[in-house]
């Protein structure tokens, strides 16, 4: 048999620690070059264990979007989006920095790390024309 060593924190904990340092890190398989997010212990589907951490470019495109309707007393309406990262993987997020109605499929966005309820959280914001991305 083979014993898998679980020394140090697992991928999910490491991702959160990076985020707390203000870094948006994703994983990439050294042998295949395929990027992985959310963080895992292996490359899904084929199982390569050679995942290394890389800094995400932060660039992404809105794949799908919705407005969650809530009364103002519960925080009001907010956006939920699925964003395709430039590196390939897709994530759920909120697009912030614009009204929820302004978020459209195909919109270019970039990552932004905020703090919410005392914990770091990954949001995205629109890339304005002429803005850096």
């Amino acid at each position, binding site marked *: 048999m083979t014993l898998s060593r679980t020394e140090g924190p697992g991928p*999910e904990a490491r991702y959160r620690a990076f985020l707390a340092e203000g870094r948006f890190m994703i994983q990439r398989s050294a042998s295949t070059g395929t990027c992985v997010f*959310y963080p895992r212990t292996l490359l899904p589907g084929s199982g390569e264990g050679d995942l290394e951490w890389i800094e995400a470019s932060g660039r992404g495109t809105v*794949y*799908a*979007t*919705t*407005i*969650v*309707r809530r009364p103002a007393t519960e*925080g009001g309406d*907010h956006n*939920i*989006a*699925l964003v395709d990262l430039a590196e390939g993987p*897709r*994530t*759920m*997020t*909120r697009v912030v920095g614009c009204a929820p109605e302004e978020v459209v*499929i195909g919109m270019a966005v970039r990552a932004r790390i905020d703090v*919410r309820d005392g*914990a770091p*959280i990954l949001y995205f914001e629109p890339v304005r024309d002429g803005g850096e991305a």
Partner: protein
Amino acid sequence: MSKLRGETAVVGIGLAGLGQASGWSAIEIMAESAKAALADAGLGLKDVDGLFVSSSTHAMPTITAAEYLGIRPRHFSGTMAGGASFEVHVLTAATALRAGLCDVALIAYGSNQRSAAGRLVSSAEPQVNEAVYDPRQPITAYALATARHMHEFGTTRTHLAEVAVAARAWAGLNPRAFKRDPLTLDDVLAAPMVSDPLSRLDCCLVTDGGGAVVMMRADAARDRPKAPVYLLGAGCAHWHRQIAMMQDLTVTAATQSGAAAYAMAGLGPHQMDMVQLYDAFTINTLLFLEDLGFCRKGEGGSFVSGGAIAPGGRLAVNTNGGGLSCVHPGMYGIFPIIEAVEQLRGEAGARQQVRADTAMVHGNGGTLSCQASCIFGTEATLTA
């Protein structure tokens, strides 16, 4: 041809606590459903030796249910694939019956979701990568899929409203349905948004209710009081858990489960007399009609237009009124099976279809995550 085709049949169906069942617990509603299904089959609890239960409230569903019923099953499965669990149970029960692991399989469900909680709640654990953003799950996931379908194929809110209006028209023919008052396209279009582009009337009901199904091997099924409804084919598939991990939000694993069911049955979509599918949200009906081959990908909206899936339309879909207008107690998957059996027996009253020899039954679980398809047929389909 698969060895499972026509080898097992549904011999009993039962319902309990539909709509509002104040003061009843989930397990009590489950047990009443089981009792009704066994009576329908001319059997008793002592005959049940295979138990298949899924629950939103019981972490060990078969153990809890068996104790409550006072039975000692020699085979059981409590698989949890959301609302699709019951179509999965049909397939699992068929294999267990055929292998001789049990002789009488009871599939049962009960929920008091409406009277206990009063809102659509999911027993599923929050997903760590989703929960921090406060999606209103499961609605938000289906809203995202709807937005994508609109973007790629030009599907409109009116197309979605056609689904809700058709379901309500069927419910009007079903005295057991929870919502029977007339509904128009304009009503749906004017309903308040919950998670755009899905409005309140694009979402399923929140009701109480339970259902149960008894299955036996075909030879024994012929000795039961009611005409057996044979399982001709079945298949199941799941491709993701969280909606962000769904590769293409417009293509579900129903493409796989449906193909497996058709292959086993040796039949195709054009040979189905009706479709009973899990319509948690209006988009589900479009996606599954496409993925199960009743129309081409992206054409679901035009396929359902003009009342095409309403009574008198080109294809009978969700003849009980579906999760949108008949009943939706947390997980709906047992009810499409029961409706198909009633139709194939000719017991469906005012909503009875004239041509009722074959039925596609399709279950959905999670956030478009698990898909399971069953094809049922009458005695006439065994030699066809």
